[in-house]
């Protein structure tokens, strides 16, 4: 297992907002093909952590490596081009474009203005868009504006956009918030299928969902890693129970979170 070089590695990353350390000497590494869940109470620095990886925030200290080279100083779009895709906490789709066009923007390997003006989308890409629309069940709505979709549909559309982008590393922030149980299950299946070929990092509050993923869990607390390990082990770690609920409560209630 350890023979493989880590795909993503964060070394001693610290981020401060006006004296408040949102991340404190955070260390974390992901192997290629791994599926990893990250949990943590509110304010643990989960979103900040994604912001640092994707280039939105520059850490005051520490470094982030992707395939062995540093991501610091690279812009969001350069990092995305390197193969890191991100899904946001609240679904972010382009409201005034149809789902099909949303997907076409995500799938395009071409990203410069000239390419978009003079190059068309090839047949394979079109088929893929059509396929993804079918997968997320948005064929009917393919030509309506995405702003008119329901919350769940937007979540699925965004996940589809992430898949369309075909990154090596998928950063997925709360993919099942607001989804029904059936949808949640399908999402878990989808993510599991993606892992292996891709590396997937999921941030989620829904413990049932994480248990479904059957993935190792990293617990963030106050900007650093509290503990790492399989779900069962983490669940029984007294430190985790303490930060979530105070000393004597049971982790099961986290599901209501």
């Amino acid at each position, binding site marked *: 297992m350890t023979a493989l070089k880590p795909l993503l590695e964060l070394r001693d990353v610290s981020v401060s*907002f*006006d004296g408040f350390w*949102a991340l404190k000497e955070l260390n974390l590494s992901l192997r290629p093909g791994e599926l990893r869940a990250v949990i943590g109470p509110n304010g643990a620095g989960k*979103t*900040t952590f994604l*912001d640092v990886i994707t280039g*939105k925030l520059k850490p005051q200290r520490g470094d982030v490596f992707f395939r062995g080279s540093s991501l610091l100083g690279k812009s969001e779009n350069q990092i995305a081009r390197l193969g890191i895709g991100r899904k946001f906490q609240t679904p972010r789709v382009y409201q005034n474009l149809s789902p099909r066009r949303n997907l076409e923007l995500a799938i395009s390997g071409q990203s410069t203005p000239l390419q978009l003006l003079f190059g068309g989308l090839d047949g394979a890409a079109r088929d893929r868009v059509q396929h993804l629309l079918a997968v997320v069940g948005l064929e009917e709505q393919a030509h309506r504006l995405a702003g008119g979709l329901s919350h769940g549909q937007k979540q699925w559309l965004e996940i589809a956009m992430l898949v369309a982008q075909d990154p090596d590393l998928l950063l997925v922030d709360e993919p099942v918030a607001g989804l029904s149980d059936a949808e949640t299950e399908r999402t878990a299946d989808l993510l599991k299928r993606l892992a292996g070929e891709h590396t997937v990092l999921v941030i989620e509050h829904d413990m049932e969902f994480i248990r479904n993923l059957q993935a190792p869990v990293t617990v963030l607390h106050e900007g650093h890693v509290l503990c790492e390990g399989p779900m069962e082990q983490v669940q029984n770690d007294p430190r985790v129970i303490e930060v979530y609920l105070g000393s004597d409560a049971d982790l099961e209630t986290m599901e209501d979170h």
Partner: protein
Amino acid sequence: MNLFYDTLFNGLAIGSVLVLAALGLAVVFGLMGVINMAHGELMMLGAYTTFVVQNVFKAVLPESVFPIYILVAIPFAFLVSGLAGLLLEKTVVRRLYGRPLETLLATWGVSLILQQFVRSVSSAFAIGLLLAVAIGLFLPRLLVRVQLAPRWAGLKGTISWISAGLVGIGVASLLGEERSLDQPWFSARNLDVTAPSWLRGSIELGGVTMPTARLFIIALTILALWGVTWFLQKSVWGIRIRAVTQNRSMSDCLGIPTETVDALTFLIGSGLAGVAGVAVTLLGSVGPNLGGNYIVDCFMVVVLGGVGKLLGTVLAALGIGVISYVVGSGSLLLIWPAMPAGLNELITFFATTSMAKVLVFALIVLFLQVRPAGLFPPKGRMVEA
């Protein structure tokens, strides 16, 4: 050294006018994210209020109290501009929260209307206007039951306002037949606001001539800054305002009346514009175009200062003031008379008030390359949604 103090004082003097003028704008922008293009016109209302107060003092009160009219004008100007701002917030800005560009355009429209308003207003006009506003507010209530095709439904308000406007115009026209009612109050002319004699002289201190009007404005600026800081930091409503700025929905849940907070913020920002309006009557002309002379400079102050802190506004304004003065007056040539010919020519080229503005803007754009969010950028995860 003398030159140094002279430069410092004049830079401070120009800067303090900018601080005062931009303060209200910065408060509203910083706290509500709204750019009020009508800010300059609210200053103009303050200046017109000063004119009215001055004339009342001249006409009604004994001559001995005339010198203090300017002090009396300050609270009045705050009130008049503040109420005008409140009306603006209640009728227009409120509908546009979260759409800053639209707010910008709408307030520009209001600024045009205000400019023409002070030019045209006469008694007949005012009565017609009041009537139109009354009808405009009342008519939609009557029309609630009227069903229109969806295409027209959205325009119901507009249609009723237009009809109200027509009634107002009709009434104003009828009243206007009476010549005394038809006389414009201010007309398009510049108004004569004469500072009391104690604000027309100057004080010599350490070889620097300090006009009392400038000193007065500096004092007024410090007072206004202190007042705003105190209000935001210490008063109950100030704390509420800051709470709403940081987290609107949370504040709402905690029972803070966010709508009242918005209105209050706007009122204070507009009122400060009114106070600035009083101050600029000491320096320049009072006319319908007064606002336009200051507004872009105010924007530059806000952009340079960033939205986070009032300190940014103050430093930005003083910085712009000192640089404009140093460049515009060609003081550099005096400090270093033997500078190389090329540089000398360059400095002379920029040593007029208009070219100094060009240079200051270029410097601001350069500065923004280093600090894109101004002197004191806001931090944290709320910055970019």
